[in-house]
């Protein structure tokens, strides 16, 4: 197949390697080295998309990441990635691309009716047109607008790729590899500094790759790039990262780079990540981001076939593609003239060079004359013709009066425009630097450095090949010196040609058309016209930040790199205030659109968060246990047998635990070893309870408050020796309790001789609970007398379990005789399997967290975080018994003295029994005094725990109810959608109120 717009020769594409690709199903050819954009242009395709709001036909405008129009979807592995810029998509064999935002087809798009109805959609139309009736917004306006607008469609399947991450450190990070970036990287690297050079493009070299009218050290610019890269590549201290965008500049010279690894490969190895996030900490950053060309704002400046002049030149010189056969060049600056000359040299007919300036530089005029190119000075384009491709342009002659007179019509199939150049200050702006206005250059340029960075070359408004090279070398040397203190003098390359481009314009061009009827686009992607900006000013938006949000100009994926300066000029004209008074919006991260996958990184699937397992895990899996997530832990929820549902399994487990024996994995409970001469004193200050008199070998329940006096954690604490305590915490509270203890030790009581060590994972813990618990553990325990006399409830001893050292606690969270055995984690599996086998002999059962919850609720034991919510005091919870009355102080003591915490009307912990024993309350349900309270009535409290109790053969519930303890015996209500449920207020202990079962 022919590529009618491919040049005979030249360009950096590999003409020997032909690639086949499709666009909207149509098969085409391109070459290795093409981007999708250059390949489409080689095939004569300019129309690549429809605009966001008016659905106008749009073509490729640029050759870089700032491309606003050519957004395409790429199909791969049965799904598509939307909104990729065709200018950045590298061609590979079999690439499948589709256009976006069109229905039913790119050529005929129903949405284009919006273009004709555009008077209905002025700037801010959301805020005006759809104000009334209010209810229409949700049901009519928003769905319709959403369906009509928008860009690509999101992918439907889970991302089939994975994403890498790498932290890196360097002395000098150079972002951008044009002449100044390459020079900076080389100068820095030669000092021995560690250098990372990244560039968003596939090839390093930037503008040098499309420059063929200059030379560096007598070489073609591209050859000089190759030589320089070879030098850099040979150095161990240099990391070269092509296809890598420096997209975020954060605090302390932390810069995020997005490296695209497989997108350009036809059949990438599945072991390669699609992209890699580089999180770089650079001592110094050199920003060599270059500059981008500004579009000219003239009516119908958005037709396919209208491109930036430099893009046209890049397609020609770098990709060997002619953007048209008859090209009109419209400009206000010198650089576009070179594009015209290059076109002419490749046999492209140049219809004319139209320069806004009355007297363009004489040397350019001479060159044009030599090539026989028609030049129109003091002339602008006032409109274009052609629907899906530009076919002619209207010219206007500038008069001294400021008016424009018609200058006739010029036929063309492509139009190259240049309004001058805008330095790319995005990264500098992200580094929190404030740009300053340079009147001579007509541009905002980087001001003072806020972080350790420097801009170089065109990104600071410096143009001309020789000047940018020199500046790049200096930037690299200075950056290396600042980073490492080392310097080295290298020979600078010198350039000839590539002189700085003068001229440029800002804002909308004058024209002789009916201003209310024409559209001159400022922001292509968001369909914002010059008219819209003026309208915003008329409607009271006087700050650029307001204008931006009202019109959406500058809110496209290029963040206004193409549009901001023109919009600013238009606004400043409409406001009649200097441009600098209107201000520039801030550039933010990311520099270009960045995939969610890159940010998510490895945090997906099994690696979303650490999955922490206990030593019983494998046994539980083999025995059909069901897990629940408790923080990062997998805990066994229940063990269904013979097809039981959860309710049946839990009922059975509860029954067996109370009648015989149950085995429970308590390994996840937090454990902290508190050691030192002041250990008891420390616990005395942390917990509400007294500890100094606790005898060695005994345990006590501990309640932990925050400074405000609210319960934050609890657990059993055993005294192993005079200066050694084994503290347990809740599973979820383990890290925070440890951190708070350490905080107090370091900041409040550094004088105490006590230290804490987390032993959560040192020990595996098996809880054996039930009347047969002693018989179950007895065969395996040595060195401990298990009798009730020697080992009463709430004691701890050290001995061995199956020969390995253990800490044996006699404690109970079930109300039954209970033991918790701690062995070192390595032996946890052995302990669990030994006990699991042993309980079978006693018809016992392993049980999970749900049964644990039911058993403790039957006894009225609170679960911190379920029955408490961070606003519950010990008094509220009915646990004043846990407060050491004689203690001078403990964390939260002063908080508890607050009048509001002692006042009447606090919620209090109570039991609730439904009149109908079969009705189970919803946890979280409100409790009221009236059976059917009027809307707006405050609740008296809420249900915190609710279960079916096998031991009582009825439902039970725990609740926090205002003044609840005084309401015992009274009837309250739990209003539900199906009707109000009457409940009797009771005490919190439902089972074995005397506690006889625990002390056997």
């Amino acid at each position, binding site marked *: 197949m022919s590529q009618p717009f491919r040049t005979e020769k030249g360009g950096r594409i590999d003409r020997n390697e032909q690639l086949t690709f499709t666009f909207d199903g149509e098969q085409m050819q391109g070459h290795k080295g093409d981007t999708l954009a250059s390949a489409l242009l080689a095939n004569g395709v300019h129309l690549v998309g429809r605009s966001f709001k008016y659905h106008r036909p749009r073509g490729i405008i640029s050759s870089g990441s700032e491309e606003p129009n050519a957004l395409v979807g790429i199909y791969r592995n049965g799904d598509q990635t939307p909104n990729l810029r065709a200018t950045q998509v590298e061609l590979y064999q079999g690439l499948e691309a589709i256009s976006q935002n069109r229905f039913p087809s790119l050529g005929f798009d129903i949405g284009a009716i919006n273009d004709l109805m555009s008077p209905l959609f002025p700037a801010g139309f959301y805020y005006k047109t759809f104000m009334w009736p209010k209810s229409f917004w949700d049901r009519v306006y928003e769905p319709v607008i959403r369906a009509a607008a928008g860009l690509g469609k999101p992918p439907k399947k889970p991302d089939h790729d*994975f994403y*890498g*991450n*790498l*932290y*890196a*450190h360097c002395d000098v990070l150079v972002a951008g590899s044009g002449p100044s970036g390459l020079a900076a990287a080389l100068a820095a690297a030669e000092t021995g500094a*560690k250098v990372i050079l990244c560039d968003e493009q596939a090839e390093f070299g930037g503008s040098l790759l499309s420059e063929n009218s200059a030379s560096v050290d007598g070489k073609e610019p591209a050859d000089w790039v190759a030589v320089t890269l070879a030098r850099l590549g040979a150095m161990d201290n240099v990391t070269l990262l092509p296809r890598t965008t420096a997209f975020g500049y954060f605090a302390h010279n932390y810069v995020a780079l997005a490296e695209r690894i497989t997108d350009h490969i036809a059949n990438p*190895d599945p*072991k*390669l*990540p699609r992209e890699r996030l580089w*999180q770089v*900490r650079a001592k110094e950053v050199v920003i060599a981001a270059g500059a981008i060309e500004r579009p000219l704002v003239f009516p119908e400046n958005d037709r396919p076939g209208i491109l930036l002049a430099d893009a046209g030149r890049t397609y020609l010189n770098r990709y060997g593609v002619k953007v048209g056969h008859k090209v009109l060049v419209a400009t206000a600056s010198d650089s576009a003239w070179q594009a015209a000359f290059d076109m002419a040299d490749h046999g492209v007919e140049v219809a004319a060079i139209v320069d806004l300036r009355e007297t363009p530089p004489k040397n350019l005029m001479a060159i044009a004359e030599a090539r026989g190119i028609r030049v129109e000075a003091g002339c602008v384009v006032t409109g274009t013709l052609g629907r899906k491709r530009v076919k002619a342009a209207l010219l206007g002659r500038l008069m001294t009066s400021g008016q424009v007179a018609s200058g006739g019509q010029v036929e063309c199939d492509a139009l190259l425009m240049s309004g001058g150049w805008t330095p790319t200050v995005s990264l500098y702006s992200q580094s929190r630097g404030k740009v300053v206005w340079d009147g001579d250059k007509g541009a905002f340029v980087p001001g003072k450095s806020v972080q350790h960075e420097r801009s170089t070359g065109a990104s600071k408004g410096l143009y001309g090949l020789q000047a940018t090279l020199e500046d790049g070398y200096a930037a690299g040397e200075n950056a290396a010196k600042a980073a490492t203190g080392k310097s080295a003098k290298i020979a600078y390359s010198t350039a000839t040609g590539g002189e700085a481009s003068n001229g440029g314009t800002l804002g909308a061009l004058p024209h002789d058309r009916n201003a209310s009827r024409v559209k001159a686009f400022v922001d292509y992607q968001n369909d914002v016209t010059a008219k819209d900006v003026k309208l915003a000013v008329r409607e009271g938006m006087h700050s650029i930040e307001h204008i931006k949000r009202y019109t959406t100009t500058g809110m496209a994926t290029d963040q206004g790199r193409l549009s901001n300066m023109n919009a600013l000029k238009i606004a400043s004209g409409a406001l009649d205030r200097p441009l600098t008074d209107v201000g520039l919006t801030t550039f933010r991260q990311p520099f270009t659109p960045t995939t969610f996958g890159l940010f998510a990184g*490895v*945090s997906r699937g*099994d*690696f979303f*968060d*650490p*999955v*922490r*397992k*206990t030593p019983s895990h494998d046994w539980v899996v083999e025995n059909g246990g069901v897990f629940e997530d408790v923080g*990062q*832990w997998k805990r066994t929820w229940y063990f269904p047998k013979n097809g039981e549902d959860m309710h049946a399994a839990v009922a059975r487990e509860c029954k067996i635990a109370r009648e015989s024996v149950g085995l429970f994995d308590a390994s996840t409970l937090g454990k902290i*070893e508190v*050691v*030192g*001469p002041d250990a008891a004193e420390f616990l005395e200050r942390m917990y509400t309870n007294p500890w100094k008199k606790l005898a060695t070998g005994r345990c006590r329940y501990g309640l932990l408050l925050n400074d405000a006096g609210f319960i934050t954690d609890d657990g059993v604490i055993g005294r192993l020796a005079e200066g050694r305590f084994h503290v347990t915490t809740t599973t979820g509270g383990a890290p925070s309790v440890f951190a708070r203890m350490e905080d107090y030790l370091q900041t409040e009581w550094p004088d105490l*001789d*006590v*230290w*804490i*060590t*987390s*032993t*959560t*994972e*040192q*020990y595996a813990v098996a809880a054996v609970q039930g009347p047969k618990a002693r018989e179950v553990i007895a065969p395996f325990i040595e060195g401990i007398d298990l009798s009730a006399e020697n080992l009463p409830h709430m004691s701890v001893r050290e001995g061995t379990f199956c020969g390995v050292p253990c800490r044996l606690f006699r404690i109970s969270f079930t109300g039954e005789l209970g033991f918790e055995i701690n062995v*070192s*984690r*390595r032996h946890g599996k052995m302990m669990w399997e030994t006990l699991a086998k042993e309980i079978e002999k006693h018809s016992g059962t392993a049980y999970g967290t749900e049964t644990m919850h039911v058993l403790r609720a039957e006894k009225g034991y609170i679960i911190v975080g379920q029955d408490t919510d961070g606003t519950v005091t010990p008094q509220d919870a009915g646990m004043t018994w846990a407060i050491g009355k004689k203690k001078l102080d403990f964390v939260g003591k002063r908080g508890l003295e607050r009048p509001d915490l002692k006042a009447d009307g606090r919620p209090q912990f109570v039991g609730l029994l439904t009149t109908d024993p079969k009705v189970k309350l919803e946890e979280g349900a409100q409790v009221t005094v009236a059976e059917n309270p009027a809307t707006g009535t405050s609740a008296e409290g809420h249900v915190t725990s609710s279960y079916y109790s096998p031991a009582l053969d009825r439902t039970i519930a725990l609740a926090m109810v205002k003044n609840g303890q005084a309401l015992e015996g009274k009837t309250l209500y739990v209003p539900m959608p199906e009707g109000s449920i009457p409940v009797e207020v009771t005490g919190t202990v439902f089972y074995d109120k005397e506690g006889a079962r625990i002390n056997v």
Partner: protein
Amino acid sequence: MSELLANDLITPDAGESPLLSLSEVSILKAAPLTRLSLRARDASLKDAGKAFGAALPVNPLLAETSKKRAALWMGPDEWTLLAPEEDCQALFTAIEEKLGDQPHSLVDISDRSEAIIVSGEKASWLLNTGIFIDFSIESFPVGTVTRTVFHKSPVMVWRTGTDTFVVEAWVSFMEYVTGLLVQSAQELEVA
């Protein structure tokens, strides 16, 4: 020196197959060890070091090794003492006896964590897929040890050779750590 003595102490677990075995980097599970957490005041360091068999480093992030012993600096008053598995009880008793009434805390944390040995020319690259520390040899010389995080897991990293690192994590985090290391290394298999 440090390299040799550490390799004497931290040895691959003979019963385990390598978690990763590539030409550029490998991951081996280390055999069980005695790990004791010692907290003490400056005045006790000499005695503690004597009883343990290796001096306690006082400079941040340093490790001191001697035959079958390593003392790792974890904080201004915190050390992790490493020794062969079978020495646990004897060492615990010896240090306790030596320190006697001197204020200190000695806690057995042998089983709290597991160690892996990450080695090879790509070892530091692999660790940097999840650890933000600069592992260049100038910034993190052989013998440096620190607590840090690997993605979302707390870990301890000890450089025992130019291309060898011992990475410890609490046992329940180890699957996460090794799983991600192996996943991140797979691109090295691509020629």
